[in-house]
Protein backbone atom coordinates (compact mmCIF):
# COMPACT_ATOMS: atom_id res chain seq x y z
CA UNK A 1 0.00 0.00 0.00
CA UNK A 2 1.15 3.58 -0.51
CA UNK A 3 2.98 4.56 2.63
CA UNK A 4 2.11 8.27 2.62
CA UNK A 5 0.16 9.05 5.76
CA UNK A 6 -3.54 9.64 5.32
CA UNK A 7 -4.25 13.00 6.91
CA UNK A 8 -7.84 13.42 5.89
CA UNK A 9 -10.43 10.76 5.33
CA UNK A 10 -12.94 10.60 2.53
CA UNK A 11 -15.64 11.72 4.96
CA UNK A 12 -14.24 15.20 4.53
CA UNK A 13 -16.97 17.11 2.69
CA UNK A 14 -14.25 18.86 0.65
CA UNK A 15 -13.61 15.55 -1.06
CA UNK A 16 -17.25 14.45 -1.33
CA UNK A 17 -18.91 17.61 -2.63
CA UNK A 18 -16.91 17.76 -5.90
CA UNK A 19 -18.23 14.30 -6.81
CA UNK A 20 -21.83 15.21 -5.97
CA UNK A 21 -21.46 18.25 -8.24
CA UNK A 22 -19.76 16.36 -11.03
CA UNK A 23 -22.21 13.44 -11.17
CA UNK A 24 -25.11 15.93 -11.43
CA UNK A 25 -23.28 18.01 -14.02
CA UNK A 26 -22.19 15.10 -16.22
CA UNK A 27 -25.63 13.47 -16.38
CA UNK A 28 -27.45 16.78 -16.76
CA UNK A 29 -25.29 18.04 -19.61
CA UNK A 30 -24.38 14.83 -21.42
CA UNK A 31 -27.57 12.83 -20.97
CA UNK A 32 -30.23 15.39 -20.03
CA UNK A 33 -30.87 13.37 -16.86
CA UNK A 34 -31.40 15.01 -13.46
CA UNK A 35 -29.59 13.27 -10.64
CA UNK A 36 -30.50 13.73 -6.98
CA UNK A 37 -27.74 12.86 -4.55
CA UNK A 38 -28.87 11.60 -1.15
CA UNK A 39 -27.00 12.12 2.11
CA UNK A 40 -23.55 10.45 1.86
CA UNK A 41 -22.85 7.81 4.48
CA UNK A 42 -19.90 5.70 5.56
CA UNK A 43 -19.76 2.31 3.93
CA UNK A 44 -20.15 -0.42 6.50
CA UNK A 45 -18.54 -3.69 5.47
CA UNK A 46 -18.57 -4.87 1.89
CA UNK A 47 -21.12 -3.62 -0.57
CA UNK A 48 -22.95 -6.38 -2.35
CA UNK A 49 -25.19 -6.91 -5.30
CA UNK A 50 -23.34 -5.05 -8.01
CA UNK A 51 -24.20 -5.66 -11.67
CA UNK A 52 -22.30 -2.97 -13.58
CA UNK A 53 -19.46 -0.98 -12.02
CA UNK A 54 -17.00 1.53 -13.36
CA UNK A 55 -13.80 1.78 -11.32
CA UNK A 56 -11.21 4.51 -11.61
CA UNK A 57 -8.04 4.93 -9.55
CA UNK A 58 -6.70 8.19 -8.12
CA UNK A 59 -3.04 8.80 -7.31
CA UNK A 60 -1.02 11.82 -6.28
CA UNK A 61 -2.24 14.36 -3.73
CA UNK A 62 -5.48 12.40 -3.54
CA UNK A 63 -5.22 8.62 -3.63
CA UNK A 64 -7.74 5.82 -3.71
CA UNK A 65 -10.49 4.61 -5.96
CA UNK A 66 -13.93 5.66 -7.07
CA UNK A 67 -16.53 3.07 -8.00
CA UNK A 68 -19.81 3.95 -9.68
CA UNK A 69 -22.20 0.99 -9.47
CA UNK A 70 -25.46 0.50 -11.29
CA UNK A 71 -28.12 -2.19 -11.41
CA UNK A 72 -28.13 -3.57 -14.96
CA UNK A 73 -31.45 -1.99 -16.03
CA UNK A 74 -30.42 1.43 -14.70
CA UNK A 75 -27.04 1.26 -16.46
CA UNK A 76 -28.73 0.37 -19.74
CA UNK A 77 -31.16 3.29 -19.54
CA UNK A 78 -28.53 5.82 -18.47
CA UNK A 79 -26.10 4.69 -21.18
CA UNK A 80 -28.89 4.99 -23.74
CA UNK A 81 -29.56 8.57 -22.60
CA UNK A 82 -25.81 9.29 -22.72
CA UNK A 83 -25.03 7.92 -26.20
CA UNK A 84 -28.56 8.46 -27.56
CA UNK A 85 -28.96 4.90 -28.74
CA UNK A 86 -29.72 1.63 -27.00
CA UNK A 87 -26.63 -0.50 -26.39
CA UNK A 88 -26.76 -4.09 -25.25
CA UNK A 89 -25.21 -4.64 -21.85
CA UNK A 90 -21.76 -6.18 -22.10
CA UNK A 91 -20.97 -5.15 -25.66
CA UNK A 92 -17.68 -3.27 -26.17
CA UNK A 93 -19.54 -0.01 -26.93
CA UNK A 94 -21.60 -0.38 -23.74
CA UNK A 95 -18.48 -1.03 -21.67
CA UNK A 96 -16.74 1.95 -23.25
CA UNK A 97 -19.74 4.20 -22.51
CA UNK A 98 -19.88 3.15 -18.83
CA UNK A 99 -16.13 3.78 -18.59
CA UNK A 100 -16.48 7.18 -20.23
CA UNK A 101 -19.26 8.19 -17.81
CA UNK A 102 -17.09 7.29 -14.82
CA UNK A 103 -14.08 8.95 -16.43
CA UNK A 104 -16.04 12.17 -16.84
CA UNK A 105 -17.39 12.09 -13.28
CA UNK A 106 -13.90 11.55 -11.85
CA UNK A 107 -12.26 13.97 -14.28
CA UNK A 108 -14.73 16.76 -13.54
CA UNK A 109 -14.33 16.33 -9.77
CA UNK A 110 -10.52 16.15 -9.89
CA UNK A 111 -9.70 19.89 -10.17
CA UNK A 112 -11.76 20.59 -7.03
CA UNK A 113 -10.07 18.07 -4.73
CA UNK A 114 -7.07 20.24 -3.91
CA UNK A 115 -3.55 19.37 -4.95
CA UNK A 116 -2.36 17.58 -8.05
CA UNK A 117 -3.94 14.18 -8.65
CA UNK A 118 -4.08 11.94 -11.67
CA UNK A 119 -6.69 9.38 -12.64
CA UNK A 120 -6.20 6.00 -14.28
CA UNK A 121 -8.14 4.62 -17.22
CA UNK A 122 -11.46 3.17 -16.08
CA UNK A 123 -12.09 -0.55 -15.61
CA UNK A 124 -15.64 -1.80 -15.99
CA UNK A 125 -16.86 -4.85 -14.09
CA UNK A 126 -19.84 -6.73 -15.51
CA UNK A 127 -21.54 -9.53 -13.60
CA UNK A 128 -24.25 -10.16 -11.12
CA UNK A 129 -24.23 -9.81 -7.36
CA UNK A 130 -20.49 -9.43 -6.89
CA UNK A 131 -18.90 -7.39 -4.12
CA UNK A 132 -16.38 -4.58 -4.52
CA UNK A 133 -14.00 -3.85 -1.67
CA UNK A 134 -11.45 -1.12 -1.34
CA UNK A 135 -8.54 -1.15 1.05
CA UNK A 136 -9.58 -0.93 4.69
CA UNK A 137 -6.92 1.73 5.32
CA UNK A 138 -9.05 4.24 3.43
CA UNK A 139 -12.57 4.91 4.72
CA UNK A 140 -15.23 4.61 2.09
CA UNK A 141 -18.18 6.95 1.62
CA UNK A 142 -21.27 6.01 -0.32
CA UNK A 143 -23.18 8.69 -2.21
CA UNK A 144 -26.60 7.24 -3.11
CA UNK A 145 -27.92 8.76 -6.34
CA UNK A 146 -31.45 8.80 -7.73
CA UNK A 147 -32.48 9.38 -11.31
CA UNK A 148 -35.72 9.03 -13.28
CA UNK A 149 -34.15 5.84 -14.69
CA UNK A 150 -33.49 4.34 -11.26
CA UNK A 151 -30.99 4.48 -8.43
CA UNK A 152 -27.23 3.92 -8.43
CA UNK A 153 -24.38 4.70 -6.08
CA UNK A 154 -20.94 6.26 -6.01
CA UNK A 155 -18.44 4.65 -3.65
CA UNK A 156 -15.72 7.10 -2.81
CA UNK A 157 -12.64 5.59 -1.21
CA UNK A 158 -10.16 8.42 -1.49
CA UNK A 159 -8.04 10.37 0.93
CA UNK A 160 -5.59 13.24 0.79
CA UNK A 161 -2.01 12.11 1.08
CA UNK A 162 0.53 13.86 3.23
CA UNK A 163 3.80 14.55 1.49
CA UNK A 164 2.38 13.98 -1.98
Amino acid at each position, binding site marked *: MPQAQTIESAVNPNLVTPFINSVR*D*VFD*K*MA*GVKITAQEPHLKAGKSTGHDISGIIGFSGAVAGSVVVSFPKAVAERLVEA*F*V*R*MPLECGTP*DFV*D*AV*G*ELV*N*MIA*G*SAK*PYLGGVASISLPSVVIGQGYTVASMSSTPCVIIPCSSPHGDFAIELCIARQAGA
Partner: protein
Amino acid sequence: MKILLIDDSKTMRNIQKAILTQLGHTDVLEASDGLDALSKVGAYQPNLILVDWNMPNMDGITFVKQYRAKGLKTAIIMVTTEAEKARIVEAITAGVNNYVVKPFTPDALSERIKETLSRVAAA
Protein backbone atom coordinates in the same frame (compact mmCIF):
# COMPACT_ATOMS: atom_id res chain seq x y z
CA MET B 1 -17.99 20.32 -45.07
CA LYS B 2 -15.34 17.80 -43.98
CA ILE B 3 -14.88 17.36 -40.26
CA LEU B 4 -12.05 15.49 -38.52
CA LEU B 5 -13.04 14.15 -35.10
CA ILE B 6 -10.13 13.23 -32.83
CA ASP B 7 -10.87 11.48 -29.51
CA ASP B 8 -9.51 8.28 -27.99
CA SER B 9 -12.95 7.37 -26.63
CA LYS B 10 -15.22 5.73 -29.16
CA THR B 11 -18.17 6.74 -27.01
CA MET B 12 -17.19 10.40 -27.19
CA ARG B 13 -16.66 10.14 -30.95
CA ASN B 14 -20.12 8.62 -31.37
CA ILE B 15 -21.75 11.31 -29.24
CA GLN B 16 -20.03 14.12 -31.14
CA LYS B 17 -20.81 12.46 -34.46
CA ALA B 18 -24.50 12.31 -33.56
CA ILE B 19 -24.47 16.03 -32.78
CA LEU B 20 -22.65 16.78 -36.05
CA THR B 21 -25.17 14.69 -37.97
CA GLN B 22 -28.02 16.70 -36.40
CA LEU B 23 -26.33 19.84 -37.68
CA GLY B 24 -26.29 18.31 -41.15
CA HIS B 25 -22.60 17.39 -41.20
CA THR B 26 -22.24 13.78 -42.31
CA ASP B 27 -18.76 13.83 -43.86
CA VAL B 28 -16.88 13.03 -40.66
CA LEU B 29 -13.57 11.20 -40.37
CA GLU B 30 -12.52 9.77 -37.02
CA ALA B 31 -9.03 9.56 -35.52
CA SER B 32 -8.15 8.01 -32.17
CA ASP B 33 -5.15 10.18 -31.26
CA GLY B 34 -2.93 13.00 -32.51
CA LEU B 35 -0.60 10.76 -34.48
CA ASP B 36 -3.49 8.99 -36.17
CA ALA B 37 -4.97 12.40 -37.00
CA LEU B 38 -1.70 13.75 -38.45
CA SER B 39 -1.51 10.72 -40.73
CA LYS B 40 -5.01 11.50 -42.01
CA VAL B 41 -5.09 15.29 -42.46
CA GLY B 42 -3.06 15.28 -45.68
CA ALA B 43 -5.44 13.08 -47.64
CA TYR B 44 -8.67 14.24 -45.96
CA GLN B 45 -8.08 18.02 -45.92
CA PRO B 46 -10.72 18.78 -43.26
CA ASN B 47 -12.60 22.09 -43.01
CA LEU B 48 -13.03 21.74 -39.25
CA ILE B 49 -11.24 19.74 -36.57
CA LEU B 50 -12.63 18.70 -33.19
CA VAL B 51 -9.84 17.48 -30.92
CA ASP B 52 -9.63 16.02 -27.41
CA TRP B 53 -6.70 17.00 -25.16
CA ASN B 54 -5.68 13.86 -23.24
CA MET B 55 -4.96 11.01 -25.62
CA PRO B 56 -2.27 8.34 -25.94
CA ASN B 57 0.61 8.43 -28.46
CA MET B 58 0.14 12.12 -29.17
CA ASP B 59 -2.08 14.43 -27.13
CA GLY B 60 -4.33 17.12 -28.57
CA ILE B 61 -2.15 20.10 -27.73
CA THR B 62 0.86 18.54 -29.47
CA PHE B 63 -1.31 17.74 -32.45
CA VAL B 64 -2.49 21.37 -32.67
CA LYS B 65 1.09 22.68 -32.47
CA GLN B 66 2.36 20.29 -35.15
CA TYR B 67 -0.66 20.92 -37.37
CA ARG B 68 -0.22 24.69 -37.16
CA ALA B 69 3.54 24.31 -37.71
CA LYS B 70 2.69 22.96 -41.16
CA GLY B 71 1.09 26.33 -41.90
CA LEU B 72 -2.41 24.82 -42.01
CA LYS B 73 -5.22 27.21 -41.07
CA THR B 74 -8.26 24.93 -40.66
CA ALA B 75 -10.43 25.87 -37.66
CA ILE B 76 -9.84 23.72 -34.57
CA ILE B 77 -12.17 23.28 -31.61
CA MET B 78 -10.70 21.63 -28.54
CA VAL B 79 -13.21 19.44 -26.67
CA THR B 80 -11.73 18.42 -23.33
CA THR B 81 -12.18 17.87 -19.61
CA GLU B 82 -9.31 20.31 -18.97
CA ALA B 83 -11.22 23.25 -17.55
CA GLU B 84 -8.57 25.42 -15.88
CA LYS B 85 -8.12 28.88 -17.33
CA ALA B 86 -4.36 28.35 -17.82
CA ARG B 87 -5.13 25.31 -19.98
CA ILE B 88 -7.56 27.26 -22.15
CA VAL B 89 -4.96 29.98 -22.62
CA GLU B 90 -2.35 27.33 -23.49
CA ALA B 91 -4.68 25.85 -26.10
CA ILE B 92 -5.55 29.20 -27.67
CA THR B 93 -1.84 30.11 -27.78
CA ALA B 94 -1.14 26.83 -29.56
CA GLY B 95 -3.64 27.78 -32.24
CA VAL B 96 -7.04 26.51 -31.14
CA ASN B 97 -9.97 28.64 -32.41
CA ASN B 98 -12.55 27.57 -29.86
CA TYR B 99 -12.79 25.55 -26.67
CA VAL B 100 -15.51 23.28 -25.24
CA VAL B 101 -15.27 21.79 -21.76
CA LYS B 102 -16.54 18.24 -21.18
CA PRO B 103 -19.18 17.54 -20.03
CA PHE B 104 -21.03 19.62 -22.61
CA THR B 105 -24.70 19.85 -23.55
CA PRO B 106 -25.48 18.99 -27.18
CA ASP B 107 -26.64 22.61 -27.59
CA ALA B 108 -23.36 24.00 -26.25
CA LEU B 109 -21.27 21.94 -28.66
CA SER B 110 -23.60 22.80 -31.58
CA GLU B 111 -23.35 26.49 -30.77
CA ARG B 112 -19.55 26.39 -30.60
CA ILE B 113 -19.36 24.57 -33.93
CA LYS B 114 -21.71 27.04 -35.66
CA GLU B 115 -19.93 30.00 -34.08
CA THR B 116 -16.52 28.74 -35.16
CA LEU B 117 -17.62 28.01 -38.71
CA SER B 118 -19.25 31.42 -39.16
CA ARG B 119 -16.18 33.14 -37.71
CA VAL B 120 -13.97 31.29 -40.16
CA ALA B 121 -16.32 32.08 -43.05
CA ALA B 122 -16.23 35.79 -42.15
CA ALA B 123 -12.45 35.88 -41.90
